[in-house]
């Protein structure tokens, strides 16, 4: 059974169809990339899955359970966590407090949450002192913090929205290794990405969205050769390079 399944998901904003009849499924333990030109509807799809937008049609199933149009907090409770395109750390709180907020999803006591938070921070290897204010972190560290915080909620599926945006090559490499480590610990990742050098080598599968519709779905190497995809998006250089 697929961990996440979308059946005919459609989302409109007035006359604009942001997601048109999208169906896909993601199996446990996979890293699946979601790519497509700007405006293709990737973040919208994430928002529909996580309950920030109401789907106009279609269903979202997690572990076989219906979570269509659940409120975001209910989706998280089911086991789906996410990060945001524009990083949303709690600026006035410390690193530890930020991650603790995530940990409270499964724990009720301050002590237990703090312990979980420290464990997650250990896994992420966020270099900064846990008592640093989140607003004082570097941009890359803030992204890692958001990831740690989402991880602390103990999800089965992680939705990452453009984690690599704004990172330099070293940082991209760090985060890529981090994501692999997380997957190896049993996490499933669904990743929206623009940075091709990062996602193509990392993902087991890649889904391409274009103008709100699913254009392709398969192994990165296959998708890169798909003529429709090349035409829409990837550009000839990368396809030729493969």
């Amino acid at each position, binding site marked *: 059974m697929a961990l996440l399944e979308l059946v005919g998901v459609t989302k409109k904003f007035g006359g604009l169809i942001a997601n048109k009849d999208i169906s896909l499924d993601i199996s446990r333990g996979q890293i699946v990339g979601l790519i497509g030109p700007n405006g293709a509807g990737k973040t919208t799809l994430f928002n529909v899955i*996580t*309950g*920030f937008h109401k789907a106009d049609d279609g269903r979202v199933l997690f572990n076989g359970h219906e979570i269509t149009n659940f*409120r*975001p*907090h*209910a989706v*998280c*409770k089911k086991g789906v*966590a*996410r990060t*945001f395109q524009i990083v*949303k*750390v*709690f*600026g*006035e*709180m410390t690193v530890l*407090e930020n991650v*603790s*907020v*995530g940990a*409270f*999803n499964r724990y*009720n*006591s*301050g002590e237990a*949450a703090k312990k979980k938070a420290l464990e997650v921070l250990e896994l992420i290897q966020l270099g900064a002192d846990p008592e640093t204010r989140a607003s004082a972190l570097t941009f890359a560290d803030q992204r890692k913090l958001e990831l740690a*915080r*989402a991880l602390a*909620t103990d999800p089965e599926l992680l939705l990452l929205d453009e984690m690599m945006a704004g990172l330099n090559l070293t940082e991209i490499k760090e985060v890529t290794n981090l994501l692999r480590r997380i997957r190896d610990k049993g996490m499933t990742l669904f990743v929206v990405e623009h940075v091709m050098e990062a996602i193509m080598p990392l993902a087991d599968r890649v889904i391409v969205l274009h103008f709100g519709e699913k254009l392709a779905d398969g192994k990165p190497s296959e998708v890169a050769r798909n003529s429709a995809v090349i035409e829409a998006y990837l550009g000839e250089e990368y396809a030729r390079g493969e």
Partner: protein
Amino acid sequence: MRSYIRVIKRASLRHIGYLAFAMFLGVYPLIFRDPYFLYVMINVLLYAFLGEAWNVIGGYAGQCALGHAAFFGLGAYISSLLFIKLGVSPWPGMLIGALVSGGVSVAIGWPCFRLRGAYFALATIAFAEMVRVLFNHWEFVGGAVGLRLPVLGDSLSAFQFRSYLPYYCIISIFFVLSFLLVWKLSKSKTGFYWKAIKSDPDAAESLGIDTTKYKLISMFISSFLVSMGGTFYSQLVLYVDPTSVLVRDLSVRVALVAIVGGMGTIEGPVLGSFMMILLSSLIRARFGDVPGLHLVIFAIILVVMSIYKPQGMMAILEDIKSWIERRRSLGAA
């Protein structure tokens, strides 16, 4: 080792401050016997209490609620009505009033929390004004004239005393309890969740936080406490009317105390209340009863602080502390 000691020292400084304040509260009536001074302190503690209550929803949960006069008034009216019409002691009356206020606040809050930003604030203002207009024209509660409570001299069960001292003790206890409550909450899961909601409601939701539920909790606690304050006030002055307990002015003052003192801090409302009440007492002493003068001065302070030091007096204290620490480290070097 040295850093360890420093941590202990810093934590203790705050706690020593709390203890010192508690002791000050204890000895104050012994030093200042004049009823006037007791009355001033009662007001300080009352507003500190109300400020802590407002802080729960305004400073921690981050919802700009500006209609709290409605709950203050409801508390005052309900306990008074129960006493006058049914002979119910104001103590259980206070509890009933607080529960009703809590219930009403949740009923109003639930549809209003959808509203973003200024619209939520406006909705609370509109709600409070409606309550005021309603009570102003409702014969049952005395309309514009209000209710007068029978003067019974010293009576614990009737929540009335001839001297200010018992009132002082009661409000001190109320205040200390509210302080401890807010302190406990701020360290709990609920407190963390409130801070998260205030900081970024969308991120909070994505982390499994039912933002509506937690906003409602903060609303309930906040209005419950404010309502208790209303009952206390009505027993203090033995008179309840719309102009004294339901006006917009009161809603603003309750929030003002917390904001000027430092939103989202436990100590803020105390500082804010001290400053506000002491200032107005000083002004009254110096300039006599010029109507509106002390409010003019508050208003100026409010505007200036909101522009230049929006974090309130607590932030000023933090600045002073850092300045002292810097001087000290420079001196040591």
